[in-house]
C-alpha cells in the first residue's frame, strides 16, 4: 500500500519537473564522462523453451527462447555495455526438463551469453547432483551467498558473488535463495545449509561497497517479491528495507508480474529498485543505469524513471 502511494504521489508531484528533465538531457549531452550500463534480466523461465500455444488462457503466443534471443541481440546491437542475468528456477515446467534435465535450458542461455544466474528451489528438482551434472552446459556462472554448499558437490563451484568490470563501472552481484526446508525434498538439497538472507546480505554488501568499492551492487534474489499473508516473511521488499548498499534487487520465485519496477527505501533511507518480470520468459526486464560525476549528480539529484 505504502509503496503504491509513494509512486503515485511522486508521479503527481513530478509533472512540474518536466521542463527540468528536458534541460537535463542537454546537460547530459555536454558531458564526456557519462557512462551507461544496461541490465537485462529474466526469472522463473521454468524450461519454457517454446512460445506458449495460441490458445493459452493467460499468455497466448508469448515467450519462447528464440524470440528472447532476438530481442537480446537487438539490444546488444544498440548498447555496448550489457549484463544479462537470471534470478533462478530455470528448471522444471515442460517435458524438456523431464527428458534432458536442464541441458537444453543451459545451452540456450549460454548461446544468449547470460552473464550470471542464481539458484531457485526448482533448480534442485533433479537433486543437487542433477544441477551439478548440468553445470558443464552453462558458460555462465551461478552465485548464491546464503546457501552454504560446503558439504555438497557444489562446494567452490557456486560463489557468493561475482564482480564485473563493465567499461570502468564496477558491478558487484550476489545471489540470495529461498529457504529450502518445506519447499524442496531434503534428499534433493542434501547438506545445503540455508543462512539468514539479511545477515548474509549485510555482510556481503558491506564488502562489495566498502572493500571492493563497487559502483553498483545488485542482488539476484529467489526469495519472492512479498508475502501478503505473512508480512514478516523475508522477501525482496523486506530485504530492501532491512539492508543498505543494495542498488537493485532482481527477484523471482513468486512469479510476480509487476507493471513497473518498484522503489523501496533501505535502512539509510536510500532507494532500492526491485524488479521481477513474471515467469516463463514472457517478459524481459530492462534497467538502464547512467553514471555521471559525483559533483554533477550532487547538483542535479539522481533521477529514477520507471
Amino acid at each position, binding site marked *: 500500500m505504502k509503496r503504491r502511494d509513494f509512486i503515485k504521489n511522486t*508521479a503527481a508531484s513530478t509533472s512540474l519537473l518536466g521542463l527540468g528533465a528536458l534541460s537535463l*538531457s542537454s546537460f547530459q549531452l555536454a558531458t564526456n564522462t557519462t557512462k551507461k550500463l544496461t541490465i537485462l534480466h529474466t526469472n522463473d523461465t521454468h524450461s519454457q*523453451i517454446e512460445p506458449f500455444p495460441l490458445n493459452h488462457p493467460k499468455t497466448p503466443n508469448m515467450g519462447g*527462447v528464440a*524470440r528472447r534471443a532476438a530481442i537480446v541481440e537487438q539490444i546488444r546491437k544498440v548498447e555496448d555495455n550489457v549484463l544479462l542475468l537470471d534470478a533462478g528456477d530455470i528448471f522444471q515446467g515442460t*517435458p524438456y526438463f523431464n527428458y534432458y534435465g536442464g541441458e537444453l535450458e543451459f545451452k540456450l542461455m549460454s548461446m544468449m551469453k547470460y552473464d550470471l544466474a542464481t539458484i531457485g528451489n526448482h533448480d534442485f528438482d533433479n537433486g543437487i547432483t542433477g544441477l551439478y551434472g548440468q553445470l558443464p552446459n552453462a558458460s555462465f556462472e551461478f552465485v548464491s551467498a546464503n546457501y552454504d554448499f560446503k558439504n555438497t558437490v557444489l562446494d567452490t563451484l557456486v560463489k557468493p558473488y561475482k564482480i564485473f568490470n563493465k567499461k570502468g563501472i564496477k558491478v558487484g552481484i550476489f545471489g540470495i535463495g529461498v529457504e529450502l526446508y518445506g519447499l524442496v525434498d531434503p534428499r534433493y538439497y542434501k547438506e545445503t545449509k540455508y543462512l539468514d538472507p539479511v545477515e548474509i546480505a549485510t555482510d556481503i554488501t558491506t564488502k562489495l561497497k566498502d572493500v571492493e568499492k563497487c559502483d553498483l551492487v545488485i542482488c539476484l534474489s529467489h526469495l519472492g517479491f512479498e508475502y501478503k499473508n505473512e508480512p514478516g516473511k523475508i522477501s525482496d521488499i523486506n530485504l530492501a528495507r532491512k539492508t543498505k548498499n543494495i542498488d537493485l534487487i532482481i527477484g523471482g520465485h513468486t512469479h510476480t508480474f509487476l507493471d513497473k519496477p518498484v522503489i523501496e527505501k533501505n535502512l539509510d533511507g536510500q532507494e532500492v529498485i526491485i*524488479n521481477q518480470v513474471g515467469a516463463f520468459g514472457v517478459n*524481459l526486464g530492462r534497467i538502464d543505469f547512467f553514471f555521471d560525476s559525483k559533483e554533477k549528480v550532487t547538483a542535479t539529484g539522481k533521477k*529514477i*524513471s520507471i
Partner: protein
Amino acid sequence: MRKNKKSMSQMKHFGLILTLLTFFTTSNAQDVVSVIEGKQVKVTEAAETKAEYDAVIAPYRSQVNRDLDKILAYNPVILDKSKGQWQSNIGDLMAKITFEKGNKVFEERTKKKVDVCILNHGGIRAMIGQGNITARNAFEVMPFENAAVVIEIEGKYLVDFVTYFIKEKKPHPIAGLTFTITASGVAKDIKVNNEPIVLDKVYNLVTNDYLASGGDKMEFLKKSTKTHVLDYKLRDMIIDYFIDVDIIKVPTDIKVTQE
C-alpha cells in the same frame, strides 16, 4: 552520445521522472548513478525468431514429441475431474493407479500391503479426452514431480480426512476407503477395505510427498508415525499403467454415499 539523447527522449514518453534528492555514497569513484530507467520488454511474435536457436532446439523437440506422442492405450470415455459430486472418473482412476502401483513397490520392500490411497482434487491438472492416449496426457494430468510415499497412520486421522472431505465438498480421489455422508452432513460407516475403521489401528496409506507433508491443508497426514519413500513419481505410475493396459478402465465402485 546519441544513445543518451535517445534514452533521454524516451524518458519524456514514459513521463514518470522522479527527482530524488539523495545521493549514492560510493566512496571511491568520481562517477555515481545519475539516472535509472526501467522498462519491461514483452516477448511476443513481434520479435523475429533466431533460426540458430531453433536449429539447436529442433532435435530435442523431435525426440520429446516422438516419445510423448507414442500411442500407449485407448481411452473410451472423457475423464474429467469436474464431473461428479463426491467422486470423479479421473480421480477414481488416479487413486486406483497410485494404490496399485504403490502397493506393488511397498509389498516387495516390506511384505505389507497398502490399505488406503488419498490424493487431492487440485492435483489433477487436466482432462483426458476420448481416443488414443499418450505419455503427453500423463504430463498434462500430472506436470509435477511429486513422488509416492506410504505413511503409517492411525485410523483416527483417516476420520479427520473424512471430516475434511465433507467440509471441502470436493471429490478428492480415494481408494480403499468408503463412507456415507448423512443428511445432516456427518460421516458414518467409515470402512477401510470393507472393514469398519479402528481408530487406534495403524494403516498404510499411499499418497504423494506433497500431501504427506501437510499440503492442501491435509495437516492430519503429518500425524503419521513412519514414512516409506517409494522413489516412484506419480506421473511415471500413470505412464506405466498406460503401457500395461490396452484400454483404460475406470473403476465404478461407489466409495462415497450421500444419504
